[in-house]
């Protein structure tokens, strides 16, 4: 009985370690996907602005076409704008991003960068606005490339480390 308990505990530890490695690797995939979605959202936003849609309509359109927390940030923004409660666009946008931060697979630095977009969205020059969005798109592109590179090098390492670490623990404790 004692032997079985010990084996079960060892299996649990080994599995936990392997799962942790897989989770770390998967998290990178999810973040990469989120960057891709963010880039798509910014692209849709810039396109809508180019054809003179109001920001509220543009945000609503992004919200409809982008799934998950990111889409909801834009939907919230569109609804908040239409309510016209007297807040500035910067406030509405930052509050929206912070409210949905837990649903976004982005790190703190990315969230801060995303929040800064609000300051530029209220501009009166469509060209300037599109340039700001393009700048953010470039930032996301760079982050995406860096993360993809990191995933190539570290992704497999996390998986291997998790599994091998689990086996090592099992062997040591056996």
């Amino acid at each position, binding site marked *: 009985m004692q032997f079985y308990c010990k084996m079960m505990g060892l299996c649990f530890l080994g599995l936990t370690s392997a799962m942790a490695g897989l989770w770390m690797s998967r998290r990178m995939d999810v973040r990469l996907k989120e960057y891709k979605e963010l880039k798509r959202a910014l692209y849709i936003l810039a396109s809508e602005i180019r054809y003179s849609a*109001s*920001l509220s309509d543009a945000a609503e359109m992004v919200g409809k076409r982008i799934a998950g927390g990111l889409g909801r940030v834009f939907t919230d923004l569109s609804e908040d*704008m239409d309510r*016209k409660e*007297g807040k*500035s666009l910067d406030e509405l946008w930052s509050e929206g991003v912070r409210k949905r931060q837990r649903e976004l697979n982005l790190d703190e630095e990315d969230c801060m960068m995303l929040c800064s977009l609000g300051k530029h969205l209220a501009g*009166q020059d469509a060209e300037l606005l599109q340039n700001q969005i393009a700048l953010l798109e470039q930032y996301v592109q760079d982050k995406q490339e860096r993360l993809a590179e990191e995933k190539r090098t570290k992704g497999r390492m996390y998986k291997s480390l998790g599994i091998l670490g689990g086996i090592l623990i099992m062997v040591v404790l056996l």
Partner: protein
Amino acid sequence: MQKQDTISRILCPPLREAVGRMINHTVYPLEEIRLRVNRPAMAYAGRKKMFLTSQGRLSDSEDEGIQVTSAMLEKTLELMSNYSLYAYEQELKNGYITLEGGHRVGLCGKVVADGDRIKTIRFISSLNIRIAHEIIGCADEIMPWIRGAQGIYHTLLISPPRCGKTTLLRDLIRQISDGEKMQVGVVDERSEIAGCYRGIPQNTVGLRTDILDGCPKQEGMLMLLRSMGPQVIAVDEIGRIEEIQAITTIVNSGVKLLCTIHGNSLDDFLNKPGMDELAANRVFQRIIVLSGRKGPGTLEQIYDGEKGDYAVLL
């Protein structure tokens, strides 16, 4: 929601509350709000221009008026444009934007020009919010005079600014569209007649009325003629030489014309540059002169353009 109630939603919080209270307490309809940076807010109601206090009262004392700051104006602009001032780029070049509800906002600030072409207005420092008014039935008195055995006459309304010519024209359009059951085409170059917001008329202009919003008059009249088969075409504030050619084409095509022009009397119309051709050809069968003598829309004279030396009908 009443038309003037919608105006408080587009103002920044301190002004919003003051205007909201004012609308509830003032007997006279609010006509205009003027906001200038570092100066007190003013409101125009019941033909009186006074300072707007934070309690929503109208005061003669400028010290009691709400001091408008640059931040307040910026926030108001954000709310007015629904955070999309860039979408009004084309309108900004003309110095105004049209809001939901048909309200017009004139803007002043630093004009950015490229040669003699205005690109935009930046650092906006003054706003003149003109609240859209719609008086259903204000054209009742005039309708019998412009209706003849062969339908509607080519009609010209002459009036000085702020004397109700656009309000009257709007009601004439509505009555011709709904009452006479005629197809009406409107070229609303400055979005004053129908007050279109995203292409949808915010004012009552009739069931059979098509609007070309924001379109130059001379091109719009011909576009309507070619595409919409109107029986009546209405335009506000004619006066440019290039519009005369389009008017002549419309009249020769059998479509009836409803126009307004700035002026105080028939002579003002006859002496305006370029109008001599229209006058010589007796294009307008009815000429109606308005004034603000007994309030906006006071009917002064109605002339018969077809008879002799412009016979006075009223």
